[in-house]
């Protein structure tokens, strides 16, 4: 192997390779030696340095205007443009991506805001309708209460329910009846207050009574009612009033 290296170094293969005057096959063989043997590589590197030194010894100052001529011959615009356009493209992509994200977020926010406002508007509309309905209802109640044909009847409890206090408003012309339950004494859980109308001697149920915080309750109007009665009945109400359970009544 050592002999091979010596023989190789003794040949002019390295010199020809350095000057680029060897054939392709010779170049491959020389590269193999350079890559394989550090001794050959060192020799090659040393030769290259010698070549550079030798060439430097013959350096001549190039004409002053040659630099400009040389550089103007170099088609660098392509690279400059490539870099320039690449930079613009990258910048544009970044801006586009940022704007896309911005508008996406903005649109989502606007949609959310729009939904919220729509919901608020629906709620407000509903609230207004409810208020109008209440106003209309109150107006009707007020009209009825102010109507000269409306009669006011106070039902006070007897000894069984002294605290019971209700006021009934009845308009026979308009066939309307309202009741305001002011106070009802407490009852056991299995009991309730039930209202009746005596129509031609028959007791007709008008419903279960509950305290209603000064709100007027509509009562089914009964033609030819002779009296209104309140009885204590089992929870849920009764079909017929229990005998002896009347706590209040008023006769017309």
């Amino acid at each position: 192997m050592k002999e091979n290296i010596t023989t190789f170094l003794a040949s002019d293969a390295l010199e020809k390779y350095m000057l680029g005057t060897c054939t392709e096959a010779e170049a491959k063989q020389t590269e193999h030696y350079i890559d394989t043997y550090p001794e050959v590589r060192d020799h090659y590197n040393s030769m290259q340095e010698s070549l550079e030194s030798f060439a430097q010894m013959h350096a001549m100052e190039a004409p002053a205007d040659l630099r400009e001529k040389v550089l103007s011959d170099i088609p660098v615009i392509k690279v400059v443009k490539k870099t320039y356009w690449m930079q613009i493209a990258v910048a544009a992509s970044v801006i586009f991506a940022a704007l896309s994200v911005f508008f996406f977020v903005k649109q989502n926010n606007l949609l959310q805001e729009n939904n919220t406002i729509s919901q608020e508007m629906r709620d407000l509309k509903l609230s207004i309708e409810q208020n109008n309905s209440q106003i209309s209802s109150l107006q009707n109640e007020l009209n009825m209460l102010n109507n000269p044909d409306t009669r006011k009847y106070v039902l006070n409890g007897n000894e069984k329910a002294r605290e019971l206090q209700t006021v009934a408003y009845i308009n026979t012309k308009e066939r309307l009846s309202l009741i305001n339950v002011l106070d009802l004494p407490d009852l056991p859980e299995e009991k309730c207050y039930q209202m009746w109308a005596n129509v031609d001697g028959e007791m007709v149920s008008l419903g279960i009574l509950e305290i209603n915080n000064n709100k007027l309750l509509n009562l089914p109007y009964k033609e030819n009612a002779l009296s209104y009665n309140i009885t204590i009945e089992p929870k849920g109400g009764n079909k017929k009033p229990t005998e002896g359970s009347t706590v209040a009544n008023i006769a017309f």
Partner: protein
Amino acid sequence: MSTFLEAHIVQLLGEEDERAVGLIYDNYADTLYGVAYKITKDDALAQDALQESFVKIWKKAASYDAKKAKLFTWLFRITRNTAIDKLRSANLRDDREIQIDISDVYNLGTTSLKPEHLDVKDHIGNLDEKYQEVLNALFFEGMTHQEASEALDVPLGTVKSRLKIGLRELRKVFNCFVLLIILVL
């Protein structure tokens, strides 16, 4: 050439960055122009050769392989081959009698040499003329070993051995020069 600068230029070449050309020109143009002139022995041809060499350098930038050759070796090859082609296409070579005049080494561009090269140049005198003849013939005259053998009237084996010894001696001279600079500094 500093290893750092060379590595930087090589990196720019690999990236096809045009700044590489400017750096190569600023750091190698005088040496390469000297090479081109030594081969063509004509100002106009040397300038043409250098211009064309730089275009080739730029076009071949991507193919440069730092593992196969130092940057200067690669630049030298391109400039040398371009200058030889220029000379041949100008039909000058046919009429030219090969002159292996060692005085070329000393006389050409003496006044235009850069100061840093003058010091190096002073040391070329330490290299025996017979080695310089061979190096000139092979490196600058574009001769093959056989042509150099005939032109210098020495056996082919002698050309080869003088080339080897010349390069080795040149290395010694250069090393001494570097050592001297280090000592002075």
